[in-house]
């Protein structure tokens, strides 16, 4: 059932990208809430906990389908690699999901003392980051498999610690968590700018702006360097065709340039209208301008990522927005040092409206990772076409994909309604009846 593969992939991509809207904010907000509780800023912390809770609920609702799809849509992968990835996926359910739902129950349904609130907030932080760790360790195994052997027609786990402490996993965890902090900072800054512009909650508005811009600048820098840089070096070393496609590079050679702008032209095997920084790619990938970055032509066609255009644009969108975010936060910090931030209305407007940028960059980053490793679902070990459930008809998958589109449209509307109301209410006014 060949036609089904595309629908399987689209459904997984759609449900994953929609799901990821929510955890990136909860992962980023969790440490901020802990920080505020440590500094006894309970009012603001309670407000952010309510924002956290709404995001968490939607994250759980959209997270269940992710785990289930390994059985329903990717039965080939589950059978072939369950020995290894079953471990890390189940760890997430047992340690992280339970931890979070139990302590969220404590925060929302009992009358905890500030000490207990701090304890529960720390548990939520640990839970959300552990969750990320286990999922990313699973993902890292598929990008850079370690700690397994082939056993007949499937894989067998040899060393769990090699799976958990895979170099790729550690790098990816750092890059992803810093990116989640970027999302949280942009959301904090946007709320601060919104309250400042609408002249409400003045003390909290100042605090939100301050937290958002300081954390925002630090994390926007760190998401590019060192974490993004390390991630790219791993791709350069272990997934050469992916790097070549990300850069739209067909020919090999030293002094490889980074493409700032250009359109990949796959039929003609060249990059149209490029603007390049010469040598930069060689230097970034290998630490020397003489590093030979091989182009796509150096690899057999069946090892090329299948959608080079989308991969190229996703990667450049992520990098471009990343640069924009550094610039914006640097400007905001500059104005803050001049004590002019709250008076610079155009900048406040920009900060208020800029919160989608990290969401888009995160989505583009995931697209880059997932398209780059094609045609492999476990890099070099299992091809994507062998991973899908062979017994599910393409019409069934299309049906559930359309179903998800409808359901998630509705979920998205409810989310905007709920989160909008919480932000309109703002800190201080207790909600929930």
């Amino acid at each position, binding site marked *: 059932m060949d036609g089904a593969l595309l629908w399987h992939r689209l459904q997984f991509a759609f449900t994953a990208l929609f799901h990821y809207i929510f955890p990136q904010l909860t992962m980023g907000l969790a440490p901020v809430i802990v920080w505020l509780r440590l500094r006894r800023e309970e009012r603001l912390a309670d407000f952010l906990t309510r924002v956290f809770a709404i995001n968490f609920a939607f994250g759980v609702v959209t997270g269940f389908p992710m785990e289930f799809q390994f*059985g329903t849509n990717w*039965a080939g992968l*589950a059978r072939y690699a369950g020995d290894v990835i079953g471990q890390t996926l189940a760890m997430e359910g047992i340690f992280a999901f339970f931890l979070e739902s139990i302590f969220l129950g*404590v925060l*929302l349904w*009992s009358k905890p003392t500030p000490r207990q609130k701090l304890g529960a907030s720390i548990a939520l932080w640990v839970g959300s980051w552990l969750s990320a760790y286990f999922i990313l360790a699973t993902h890292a195994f598929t990008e850079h498999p370690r700690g397994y052997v082939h056993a007949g027609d499937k894989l067998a786990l040899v060393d769990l610690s090699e799976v958990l402490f895979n170099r790729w996993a550690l790098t990816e965890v750092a890059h992803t968590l810093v990116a989640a902090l970027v999302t949280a900072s942009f959301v904090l800054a946007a709320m601060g700018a919104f309250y400042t512009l609408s002249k409400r909650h003045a003390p909290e508005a100042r605090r939100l702006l301050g937290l958002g811009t300081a954390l925002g600048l630090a994390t926007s820098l760190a998401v590019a360097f060192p974490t993004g840089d390390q991630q790219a070096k791993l791709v350069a070393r272990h997934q050469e065709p992916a790097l070549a496609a990300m850069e739209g590079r067909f020919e090999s050679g030293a002094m490889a340039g980074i493409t700032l702008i250009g359109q990949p032209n796959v039929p003609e095997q060249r990059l149209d209208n490029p603007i390049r920084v010469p040598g930069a790619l060689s230097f970034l990938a290998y630490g020397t301008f003489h590093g030979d970055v091989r182009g796509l032509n150096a690899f057999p066609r069946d090892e090329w990522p299948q959608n080079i255009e989308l991969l190229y644009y996703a990667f450049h969108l992520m990098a471009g927005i990343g640069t924009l975010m550094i610039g914006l936060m640097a400007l905001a910090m500059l104005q803050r040092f001049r004590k002019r931030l709250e008076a610079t209305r155009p900048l406040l407007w920009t900060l208020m409206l800029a919160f989608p940028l990290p969401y888009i960059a995160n989505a583009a980053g995931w697209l880059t990772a997932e398209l780059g490793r094609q045609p492999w679902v476990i890099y070099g070990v299992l091809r994507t076409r062998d991973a899908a459930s062979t*017994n599910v008809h393409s019409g069934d998958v299309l049906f559930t994909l359309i179903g998800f589109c409808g359901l998630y449209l509705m979920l998205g509307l409810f989310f905007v309604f709920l989160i909008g109301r919480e932000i309109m209410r703002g800190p201080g006014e207790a909600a929930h009846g």
Partner: protein
Amino acid sequence: MVEVWYALVAFAIAAYVVLDGYDLGAGMLHLFVAKTDDERRAVLGAIGPYWDGNEVWLLAIAGALFVAFPAVLAAAFSGMYLAMFMVLWALAFRGISIELRGQSKNELWRAFWDFVFAVASVVLVLLLGVALGNVLRGFPLDPKGMVVMPLFADFTPSPPTGLLDWYTVGIAAFAMVALARHAALFVAWKSSGDLQTRCATTARRAMPVVLALWLAAWATSLSVAHLRFRPLAIVFTLAAAGALGASFVLARRARWRAAFVASSAFLASVVFGVASATFPTVLRSIDDKSSLDATAAASSPHALAIGSLWYGFGILAVVVAFARQFRQVERDRP
């Protein structure tokens, strides 16, 4: 090791049935036992702090299968593809109905979400009951160990096989009534006044139906699911009978908490009894020729050994954390 994992999967299923059972059951019942807005809020308040954590046991089941018996996860989940997505969507609708109901005081708004909550709960119990029935009856397995089957065929458990037949629907009916009674006892424990009286009536009326359907399920399963009379299976079945009787007596004396605990013991014993009576088959084929037993379906010995360490520890930690949460939430209730 294989036996340990078989027991862990059974434990996760039992925990899910007992825990999510009462909040699913509360969803099925609340339109009938809770008439006013205050009463409906009382039902939602009773399950509010727990339903989310209870649902995670469903992930714990999937997780245990993924670690220990990935072939079973792959065959059963993909074989019941559309039903699994109905489960996921019903879970989503249940979650949002609980979240959104309280967001407006408008009567129609609340009535609408109450209805969604009830329908989603009923659909979930039916689907999960049917899924369990399918696992017991067995799947039409192809040579690769995968499943293709329609929604229903001739409605009998013998080939041609469909998701629905009188056996799987019967198991679902038993699940529905048993969980309705389970939830009635839970809400009765957590409430007072008219709500409690109506729950008491529901529990009393459900009792003979639970007993009859349980006996019918046992009798039909003997042939359909090839149950084996093992000492352990008999012990659990006797324990289930005892727990059901105890819960009946305790409910008559209006000792709701104890009756609910006894009902939990009944449900758990039923799950353990069935699990011991079907061991070692983990993926039954409809003709029983290509059935997979636990050893054949299991992951590598190393994966099982290291997995049992952290999974066992994790389950223990969850139980402790859950008990603490329960104490704290119940203490602070207004």
